[in-house]
């Protein structure tokens, strides 16, 4: 999985490309751990081909840590495959989900 990073307003925007699964989830966690705890982030999921329970676990874990640090984590541009997993697992109730990266970083 590739992770590209940019900054919009005060948010670090991480664009993921590829599969977010057991083998790639640690890379995402490491990437996020490289930021200060109070750094708010937006994760762009448009190019995520596959998401499994480990990938979900990584996202939930990051969200919990950010919440504990009073930072914000948002998800943006979920494609249908990813949205389906969030829907069936009801994980969407945990996240602020935007259909546009700039809207997520603006709010």
């Amino acid at each position, binding site marked *: 999985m590739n992770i590209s990073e940019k900054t919009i307003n005060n948010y670090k925007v991480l664009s993921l490309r590829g599969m977010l699964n057991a083998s790639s989830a640690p890379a995402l966690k490491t990437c996020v751990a490289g930021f200060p705890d109070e750094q708010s982030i937006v994760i762009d999921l448009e190019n995520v081909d596959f998401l*499994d*329970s480990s990938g979900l*676990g990584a996202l*939930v874990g990051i969200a919990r840590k950010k919440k504990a640090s009073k930072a914000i984590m948002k998800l943006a541009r979920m494609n249908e495959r990813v949205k389906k997993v969030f829907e069936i697992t009801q994980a969407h109730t945990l996240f602020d*989900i*935007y*259909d546009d990266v700039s*809207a997520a970083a603006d709010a």
Partner: protein
Amino acid sequence: MKTLIVIREQEYAWLRDMLPGVHPLLVPVCNKPFIEFFIDFSIFTGSKAIRIISDGLLGEVERYCENGSRWGVEISYGSMQPADELPTVIDKNRRFCLEERVLIIKGFLFIHYDKKRDYTTLFASLPSGELLSCCHGSITLTGTVKPESSSADIPFSLTALDTVGKYYSLCMEILRSELTNYVIPGYSSEADCYIGRNVVIPKSAEIKKPVIIGNNVQLLANTVIDTNSVIGNNVIVDRESIISGSIVMDNTYIGEHLEVKNKIAAGNLLIDPESGTSIVMEDPHLLTGMTQSRAAGTLLRRMVHALAATFMILVLLWPYLLLRPVLGLQGKWKRVRETYYNDLPGKTVTLTKTTIDSDEPLGQLAKTLSLDRFTLLFRVLSGKLALIGYHPVPINPALRIIPNNTTGYTPAVFSYAEAEDWPEIGIDTEIVEHYYAVHGNPLKDIAMTQKALFNRNH
């Protein structure tokens, strides 16, 4: 023009209690799923795309409406947080709302419209802003356009739906005076009478208008469907029964020699719309629900679980017989009986949960072998539990959401969360359980059981 439909779960929670087996947005209003009225209205206003947003589950709605190709519109779905205000929801859907006029329908309300009117021209010329509102919602237009008409003569009205009484009144109102305003399912050879496909009506049956009868309905000899009645799909009305001013929901059997007057019958529930009280009919000869048999895939899964449970019983029997009495005498084997939700709506299962003090070697050994779950394995053989699935949810809605509203909930001896070593906090556990309930298969279940056996002790 686009339409954004924003409905919060809290607004329709009352309907879940009344009709637990149906998603509230799919509850039929005069035999037409509620959400279809929104879709129709959006189409009449000239919308080419519709987005349905909720903080609750939309899976069932999505399976029903799909991508909207059936109606010639593009339907998409989105989520929101319960506390999100309308501007936040619009912001979260900025890409959808950009560059077009957007009709925003907010709340669980019914829009009284008339299909014979030209809403497309009207909505194209209406000024932006709130067009109509009621106590539980509103209709708003966004986007700029040169206003040509004022919002004073808007030819539709709203009814908030927040009680079973209002739901019943709405159905009756449509039946009595608004049937021609909407696209109602069924064949109508004469006014105020809609009849679906595959309806068996004997010569001795009597039907009085206005009436709506759904698909696959069987009326038996001498039945009377009196005025102002709505009979849903897959309904049987047995001999010499009278339905009058009532709504019979889908998949319901009405027994013989009964008179159902001014009521809502749904499965084995009989609801009085005036008081809101309901009676569960225990006698299936009077009133009962008709359910489909389990899918073959579920049966295969259960068989594999039963085989694996048998194997585990055989392996763990001797350790259990040896360790159980010793730990019991030491007071380290504690048991608590509790009632949990079952996988069928409204059903429960009572289980004895065991906890073992593992502060010394014998206790540790018993825990390592998962002997605390040994007796539960027999429940797998009887089909009451799965070998691996969801943590059984105690009957306490304050703890977690009612599992019957979710798909795939199956209480089990071991849980997917234990297998994946997810922390047991709130919704996190449910996330992984939902994931495997949908993505699992019998073989994967065996592998996950092995993982659970290993992980719960490490």
